[in-house]
């Protein structure tokens, strides 16, 4: 039982990384990125393709991808997504959903529908044992990265000039612009940062398990559930939501492999009905 709990928390670490970008983009500009999962998969495939070209440790490839992801996200927001923002959610949903379909089919054309993964050598099999508990080193590293990223984003949001700009445009775009902020650039910056977390999530997903071009929607749903369970607008909330989702799924898988993901969805819906504002709403001050 404790083992299931531990595995669930470690799985939650990965889900947390899926969710952070979603939370940031929604928090700053109320943009629901329905291609979140597909961008994670795109990041994973970018790492896998790079690993085939240069023979260095996957972690280094991941680090090299981060600035590229930032620029990609910045440009995407600046030149495509900014044009879709507004009171009506339809344009941004259609455009990101269209991007999701383009990414899925583009990857399938390039890499076929087969699942692939990123070879990590010894890291894939190493594990640590404490008493009766055993945990893989890689999942522990992923958990650590998730904690670090959550901490970093919360700090960025609450304690820095950039974060102040994020909060300002989030609260009232027009007033923020009167104070001299260029909302379009602030939005682009937020998406750039969100895409850094997306790239991290993609590389770690490819290291931990396999990825296929059609995986995106499922990852999107996990990210979304973590954000809503945790309560919108809080990175630690998303972290806790991801933990709850990971543990629930792990317990579900233990009961019956066919129902694991289903039980995760059900717990999400229960939280939605019982506590629609999420478990930890708006912890950012």
């Amino acid at each position, binding site marked *: 039982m404790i083992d299931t709990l531990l595995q669930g928390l470690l799985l939650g670490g990965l889900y947390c990384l899926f969710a952070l970008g979603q939370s940031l983009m929604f928090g700053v500009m109320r*943009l629901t990125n329905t291609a979140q999962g597909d961008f994670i998969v795109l990041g994973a495939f970018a790492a896998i393709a790079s690993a085939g070209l240069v023979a260095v440790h996957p972690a280094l490839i991941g680090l090299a991808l981060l600035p590229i992801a930032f620029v990609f996200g910045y440009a995407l927001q600046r030149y*495509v997504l900014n044009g879709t923002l507004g009171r009506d*959610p*339809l344009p941004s*949903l259609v455009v990101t*959903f269209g991007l999701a*379909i383009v990414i899925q089919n583009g990857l399938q054309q390039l890499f076929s529908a087969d699942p692939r993964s990123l070879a990590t050598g010894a890291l894939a099999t190493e594990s640590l044992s404490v008493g009766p508990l055993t945990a893989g080193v890689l999942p522990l590293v992923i958990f650590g990265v998730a904690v670090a990223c959550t901490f970093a984003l919360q700090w960025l949001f609450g304690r820095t000039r950039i974060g102040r700009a994020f909060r300002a445009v989030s609260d009232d775009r027009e007033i923020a612009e009167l104070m001299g902020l260029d909302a379009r650039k602030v939005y682009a910056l937020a998406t750039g940062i969100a895409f850094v977390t997306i790239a991290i999530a993609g590389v770690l997903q490819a290291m931990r398990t396999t990825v296929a071009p059609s995986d995106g929607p499922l990852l999107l749903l996990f990210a979304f559930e973590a954000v809503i369970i945790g309560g919108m607008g809080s990175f630690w909330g998303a972290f806790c939501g991801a933990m709850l989702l990971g543990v629930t799924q792990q317990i579900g898988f233990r009961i019956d492999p066919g129902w694991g993901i289903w039980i995760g969805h059900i717990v999400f819906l229960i939280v939605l009905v019982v506590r629609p504002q999420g478990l930890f709403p708006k912890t950012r001050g």
Partner: protein
Amino acid sequence: MSAISPSTTMPAAVSHAAAADPIVVRGTLLSQVTLGVAVVLVGVAASLPFWGESSWMREFVEIACYFIFASMWNLLAGYGGMVSIGQQAFYGIGGYAMLALGNFGGINPFVAIPLAALAAGLIAVPVSRVAFRLSGGYFAIGSWVIAEVFRLGIANVSAVGGGSGTSLTALRGIDKATRESTTYWVALACVVACVALVYLFLRSKQGLALLAIRDNEVAAESQGIAVKKMKLAVYVVAATGAGLAGALYFVGNLRISPDAAFSVNWTAFAIFMVVVGGIGRIEGPIIGALVFWALNKFFSDYGTWYLLGLGLLAIVVTLFFRQGLAGFVQQRWGWVAFPTQRTLKG
């Protein structure tokens, strides 16, 4: 949204101006011509089983299902303002309800089609209690989760074949020609009913209320419109229509599986049709379905490239051409085949 259809901000003005006795014009010359042409077309189409080929009928049934589903998505998103990526839930429920009524209930599958649609509408009532907790973009993804719950749930029910699905055995014993022409007539009737009902609904008082809600929820509520009731009604009607499309599709298809019935692609194609045709217009899904049919016919052999192209087209239309084809025609030449607005003369 108000940019799409500027005329919908009129209702308040209309009711005040009515006192001064201007003439309220609701039809156009084109709308009367459309009605005439439509009657002739439907008449010709109804006789198709006597002179056409059975492949044409199959093709029509398939595109009819896409169209009905898309026009229900248009009602929900374009008029109700509820953008959903989870309408495939009701498509699948319609399909499975029809199958269960036919295979286990001994009901003729053609009779089961409307019953299955009602079942989808009934299930939409409790589902709305959950889905309406979210709004905007989160409503869209939340409904997707709900659709997945149904897909994964039914994949675990062994009575209907679990994940690999099952066949509609209730149609055994009916010969192929009878089955195909009956399916075709039912599909034709469903399409006509769907267009007529949506048109009449949007022209009614309730339709006006719906447009007001879409344009400004708070203002609509302050005018005494029961916003919550109206949204629920639209959600249930859209679910019923989606269930109808699903039931019809799987009567034509004879085989059902959770992955096919609850595929997000149904909604993806519906979004494509509505966006390309023109959202928030009755003509939108009609034109969109024709465009989709043509593209499908000529390019579907290209597989992934074809789907990639559909995705790109939807993005380009949304970014640069937001009113869609029907909206373009209306703005350029003022043609409206199904006028729902009230125009004042004199």
